């Protein structure tokens, strides 16, 4: 036996499970506080993913119990109403690392490497020697299965200790389908910014379709904490489709494996069948560039040939991969998620169009909330998410943080020393990166790795929010000024008149003429609020003419027409100016007169529409409204038709290859794209005004 052969035979086959045992710090089990958060996270991620796949609105309950008379021992109970796991799969799901279909599929999902829940079972076993109890019920079976599991860490295999079929009831209801896990581990329960509560709160923001309950029971067996983050929408995330890899995102090893596994006889058909975005023209081009014949047999390619094939791929232009493999949360839902968990005065959100970086589709979503009860002398709270999973550690080393820190927030009204770093102020900034391939800095998946393209995309999105914030602040300032005037004429002036009259024993004089002199302005007061009783959004505006001359205006207000809102109770009538913009003509408002504009918005939920923009056409300034920029309005009207033209052009280019593409674009146009249009339209109108 040669020395080399001897050495090789001596090398132990290290099971992945054993590797994990030695490297648990990589996987989020390095501290006692983190261990329980990671465990909760794995359980919740699994539940959300499973519910999403099975199209079930998730109800998730997490319970932590301090084990009495123990040092740092916690029991974790996780329960969901998901599809459950078939009896025969339980061992694999809970007992084998790198198990699951997700590892090979290319699409956006929460747990990407499938290392998740098995790690929890293993950690439990390593720190307490206890088995993990699992109860699962699938809809097609009449009873649930109960299993106690351990793991043979050397064989990467689950060991089943008991198995029974039972009837699962919760309260007096028989559970149709769901999963129940109870496990015990060495861990510490903490509060604060890196806690289970924070993690679940963040999870609920980006999963507004989930109903999440949390309970903490202390060592005396008392319920100490109970939280419930209610479902804010009944719409499940758009179903995501698995896509084939894109030639720009492929690595050598992956390409070799695909070639080896392929059944295609010709290289061109291999390229077209196994990749997305490859037209027959492009496939031929790759072969030519790689100096390979179109008919070369994929299975037989040598390493140098694979290398030149890879090089050729990077030189050829392909159609972008379809982006319907992504599941953005979408503007409105982020807004809802944020509003329900954090008390604030102003929320702005943005979902950018999906983009592709190195063959991987990705999409950026951002949100910013401001005001309310948030502290103004502290750093802004950052909420980072990758594929709807909260990132709670390694904030400083994360691309999402770096993008936020690279912006000079001072120009948008937040404090920031030197125009760099995490800004200060009563605000929370949310960044969500959705991608088929999120690159993390480490296995712990807590920080997104640097990437210039993605960074620029996040910056663009954040700058847009910044402009919205600035607009809001400006508006607030303007309104405060108007409010001062209102206070003056409604409170102070009558008090002066009354006091002066009573001191002199004379009658109180009529004030209207004095009021006109003091105000000498036309003022728009507007309020948007949710009416509990009718379950509609109400918009109420009053236009006051406090000048000495008659005035006439056209008043315009925006409304969420594209979101499906229905305008009701609009007694004043008016007419539609363009999509999402209504106009009312106010003919001659006499000095001292006022005009009411009121309407309701049906088919919306609470929090969907909280701020209405008011514009005016007319010669004299209206305090509390912005002058309408006609040029931009024109552009906006044109844009609505341009979108259609653009789509038409794509279709004629390469019909058979782009059908799926167009479909996905069209789908996006229906929802998110419109939102972006609206957002940027409002901003530009305002910017114009600010430049004067």
């Amino acid at each position: 036996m040669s020395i080399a052969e001897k050495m090789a035979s001596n090398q132990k086959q290290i099971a992945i499970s054993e590797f994990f045992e030695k490297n648990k710090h990589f996987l989020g089990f390095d501290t006692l506080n983190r261990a329980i958060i990671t465990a909760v996270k794995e359980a919740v991620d699994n539940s959300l993913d499973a519910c999403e796949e099975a199209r079930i609105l998730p109800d998730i309950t997490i319970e932590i119990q301090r084990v009495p008379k123990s040092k740092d021992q916690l029991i974790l109970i996780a329960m969901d109403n998901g599809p459950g796991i078939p009896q025969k799969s339980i061992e694999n799901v809970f007992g084998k690392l790198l198990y699951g279909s997700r590892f090979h599929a290319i699409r956006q999902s929460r747990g990407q490497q499938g290392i998740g829940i098995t790690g929890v079972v293993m950690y439990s076993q390593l720190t307490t020697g206890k088995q993990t109890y699992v109860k699962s019920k699938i809809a097609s079976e009449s009873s649930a299965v109960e299993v106690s599991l351990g793991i043979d860490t050397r064989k990467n295999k689950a060991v089943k200790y008991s198995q029974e079929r039972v009837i699962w009831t919760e309260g007096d209801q028989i559970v149709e389908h769901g999963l129940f896990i109870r496990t015990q581990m060495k861990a510490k329960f903490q509060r604060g910014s890196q806690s289970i509560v924070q993690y679940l709160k963040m999870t609920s923001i980006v999963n507004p379709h989930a109903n999440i309950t949390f309970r903490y029971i202390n060592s005396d067996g008392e319920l100490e904490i109970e939280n419930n983050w209610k479902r804010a929408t009944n719409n499940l995330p758009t179903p995501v489709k698995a896509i084939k890899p894109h030639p720009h995102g492929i690595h050598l090893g992956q390409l070799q494996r695909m070639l080896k596994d392929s059944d295609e006889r010709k290289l061109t058909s291999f390229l077209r069948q196994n990749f997305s975005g490859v037209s027959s023209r492009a496939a031929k081009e790759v072969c030519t560039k790689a100096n390979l014949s179109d008919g070369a047999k994929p299975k037989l390619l040598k390493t140098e040939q694979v290398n030149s094939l890879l090089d050729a791929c990077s030189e050829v232009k392909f159609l972008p991969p379809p982006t319907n493999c992504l599941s953005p949360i979408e503007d409105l839902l982020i807004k809802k998620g944020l509003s329900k968990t954090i008390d604030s005065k102003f929320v702005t959100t943005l979902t950018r169009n999906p983009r592709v970086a190195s063959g991987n589709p990705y999409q950026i979503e951002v949100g910013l909330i401001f005001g309310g009860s948030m502290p103004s002398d502290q750093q802004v709270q950052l909420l980072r998410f990758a594929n709807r999973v909260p990132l709670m550690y390694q904030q400083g080393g994360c691309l999402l943080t770096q993008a936020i820190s690279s912006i000079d927030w001072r120009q948008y009204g937040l404090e920031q020393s030197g125009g760099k770093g995490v800004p200060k102020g009563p605000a929370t900034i949310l960044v969500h990166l959705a991608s088929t391939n999120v690159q993390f800095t480490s296995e712990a998946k807590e920080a997104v790795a640097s990437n210039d393209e993605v960074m620029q995309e996040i910056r663009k999105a954040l700058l847009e929010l910044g402009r919205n914030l600035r607009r809001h602040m400006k508006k607030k300032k303007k309104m405060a000024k108007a409010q001062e005037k209102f206070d003056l004429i409604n409170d102070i002036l009558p008090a002066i008149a009354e006091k002066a009259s009573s001191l002199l024993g004379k009658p109180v004089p009529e004030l209207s003429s004095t009021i006109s002199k003091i105000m000498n302005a036309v003022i728009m007061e507007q309020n948007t609020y949710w009416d509990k009783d009718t379950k509609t959004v109400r918009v109420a505006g009053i236009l006051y003419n406090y000048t000495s001359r008659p005035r006439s205006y056209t008043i315009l207000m925006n409304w969420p027409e594209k979101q499906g809102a229905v305008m009701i109770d609009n007694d004043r009538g008016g007419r539609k100016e363009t999509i999402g913009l209504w106009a009312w003509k106010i003919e001659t408002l006499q000095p001292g007169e006022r005009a009411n504009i009121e309407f309701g918005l049906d088919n919306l939920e609470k929090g969907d529409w909280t701020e209405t923009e008011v514009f005016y056409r007319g010669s004299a300034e209206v305090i509390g409204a912005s002058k309408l920029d006609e040029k931009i309005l024109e552009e906006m009207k044109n844009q609505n038709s341009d979108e259609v033209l653009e789509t038409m052009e794509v279709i004629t280019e390469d019909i058979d290859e782009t059908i799926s593409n167009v479909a996905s674009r069209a789908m996006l146009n229906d929802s998110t794209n419109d939102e972006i249009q609206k957002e940027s339209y409002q901003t530009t109108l305002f910017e114009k005004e600010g430049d004067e």
Partner: protein
Amino acid sequence: MSRRREEGETKAALHQVVEEMYTKLEKGETPTMTLPVRTKLNIDFDKKLGVYKYGKKRSTRDASSLGSAKNLLRALHMVEFIDEMIDNGKSSTLREMYYISEGWGHGKFSTQNESNNLAEDLEIITTSMREDFKLRPEEDGSRIIGNLTINELNRRGEWMKINARDDVGDSGYGVPYNVEREKIELLDHDVDFLMAIETGGMFDRLIENGFDEEYRCGLVHLKGQPARSTRRILKRMNEEWNLPVVVFADGDPWSFRIFGSIAYGAIKTAHISEYLATPSATYLGVTADDIVAYDLPSDDLTSKDIEALKSELSDPRFADGYWQEQINTMLKLGKKAEQQSLAKYGLDFVTDTYLPEKLAELGLA
């Protein structure tokens, strides 16, 4: 010369303020309150009185902004409050009024400074004194030591004869806030002049050294910028007893201002300068020249000091040759010195050498 008013007159004058607002409202105009501009740009020398008074510049406060409208409302509340006090024979401190304003709704004060300033505004507009308004300051007056005998009406309503040398302890006679004739009578004295001293340390040094007896003078402690009652009692002793007044202060721009307010009247109280100012008072020191002549330990002027000196150069009260020279010398020197820096030459230097020399210059010793 404005003078103390009868209660009826005070009320009528205050009602003029109300009348101005009411008339404007009746005409459909914005209510206003007109008062003299209260800066150094609007003080003129009154030759007849020998003091600086507000000039003719008027500013109008109107109710077109929230802030000034609130001020007008406060003025009305204050008028009503004063009316009531006059009718009920009560009085209150400025601070008490500030707290009472809590119940004035939109007319409540947000700082005591606001209420003090408005009280002054009303004094100026109505040419009354705050004593007429039954308002008193909480600032206490100064201390006096020397062979001066006064009669003070004590709180039991009895007249009490006090000699400010024999009937008092080391802290001297405490000057009450009201030093008008109904409260204080100046009976008798046996001194040649009065010396007003800026700091407590120097006041106590002169007493310890027996300066008042040796040089036959009354010592008055100013406590920095002197309170109205301090200036008023100096004025009365100067007029009624015909005693010269000299001012002994630190050698810095702020001391010049203290002297200015004693001799010519303060800008803030220019409406009652003829009550408070002693035009014949002279500045004894520390002068800018003294810093050099006596080689006194000194500090560099701060930027605020320099700013103050420059502002004094354009102040009409310091327009004469003596002050222009003093101010310019100090600016050139770039130095200031405290009274107590004279201790450089020993504790007795001030009483044995400095003051006798300076008083000799003035012909008082």
